[in-house]
């Protein structure tokens, strides 16, 4: 059962235009921000796969992912301006487009984020399932299944992660 609450169906409250391409994407970005210890990354490489790669511009998937990485939630009206805000803050970000399916996860709305803040360096794989719900399927090359609803407390989810997931020897972003 992916959807567990009436508020997964009536909700989230979010900026448009797409719950899977905007709200779910913002959640994946926001989760990565929490994983970086609530720090905005200095550097972020974001790979978009399949439907994400085909339609990201129209849905603002890039803005939502980046907004999330800057700590914005799905209802934050600043998401619209996230690319400009990130540039103003001198964040070195880039998007890579892979128009085929993600090799790690069979779903059209997938992304892999590699981000760096200070000495912290994380790799996060996320899939957006619709209705604002998403799954984190990869953290630093360890497979996982973490369900994210926009209502969840991402910080406490991050605090409960096993230690081996939080270590990442690879230094390149």
């Amino acid at each position, binding site marked *: 059962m992916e959807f567990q609450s009436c508020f997964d169906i009536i909700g989230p*409250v979010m900026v448009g235009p797409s719950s899977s391409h905007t709200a779910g994407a913002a959640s994946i970005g926001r989760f990565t921000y929490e994983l970086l210890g609530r720090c905005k990354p200095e550097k972020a490489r974001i790979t978009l796969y399949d439907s994400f790669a085909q339609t990201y511009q129209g849905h603002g998937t890039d803005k939502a992912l980046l907004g999330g990485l800057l700590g914005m939630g799905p209802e934050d009206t600043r998401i619209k301006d996230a690319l400009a805000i990130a540039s103003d803050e001198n964040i070195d970000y880039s998007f890579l487009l892979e128009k085929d399916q993600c090799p790690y996860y069979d779903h059209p709305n997938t992304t892999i984020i590699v981000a760096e803040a200070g000495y912290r360096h994380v790799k996060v794989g996320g899939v957006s399932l619709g209705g604002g719900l998403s799954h984190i399927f990869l953290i630093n090359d360890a497979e996982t299944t973490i369900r994210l609803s926009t209502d969840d407390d991402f910080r406490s989810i991050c605090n409960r992660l096993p230690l081996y997931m939080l270590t990442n020897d690879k230094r390149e972003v």
Partner: protein
Amino acid sequence: MESLLSHCEAKNVSIADAMIGKESEKAEMTREDIFHKMKDRLIKMQEAVEAGKSDGSPAPSGISGGDALKMGEYIDRGDTLSGSLITGAMRYAMATSECNARMGVIVATPTAGSAGVLPGILFSLRDNDNYSLDALTNGLFTASALGYIIANRSFISGAAGGCQAEVGSATAMAAGVIVELKGGTPRQAVHGTAMAMKSLLGLVCDPVGGLVEVPCIKRNVIGTSIAFSSADMALAGIESRIPCDEVIETMYRVGSEMPRTLRETSLGGLATTPTGEGIKRKLYS
């Protein structure tokens, strides 16, 4: 759906009541707190309707916007074909979906692409039949119970199952809501849901330029009419010959067999018409 119905019939409660009970048990919150949380979302929906209905500005893409305003002016001239209940719903659905395209704040019901249908029918019922915000909040619980089953058994995202999964699900939920708000039984509501979903089976997701605008906004608008027609049939005592559970299962099978080009990739359908391709070139040049 059958197990939801047996629960409602055994306990003599509405679908909305059953959902509030289940949620309060699971989330360990009082029924009042859950009700208020849902009412807050209804108020956000109302704000989106209000923002959208008088906003004539185009979306950033320039390919949508201003139609809710036109619909309002048309209604004010007092000579519509469908009557005030349906045209009101059309106007509010359009207002919400246009607000969504402008990256305004909306409530996904169940998704942002299909966020127009429910506020459309709810706020038109308020205008025409004097439903209170509390009554409409109950309607959202009915909608969430129906959507919960659809989402867990099938899908609600266009990328996974086509537009039938988005506007189809929203319309099916809306039909059940109308039946229950109008005093129909839970069983009638579920038949309304089945009849609405059957009408949209196979609908592909083919957004022009990848934007949730063309044809998404107008499909939300039309969804409200299908919801009212299905609800009227259900309230007349007409039943879906195919049980609702089997219709939902069919939506899953049809969506699974749908080619990738017709599942929100903008690689087929209206997105690849000469006009659709032209818009895409203009947007991304």
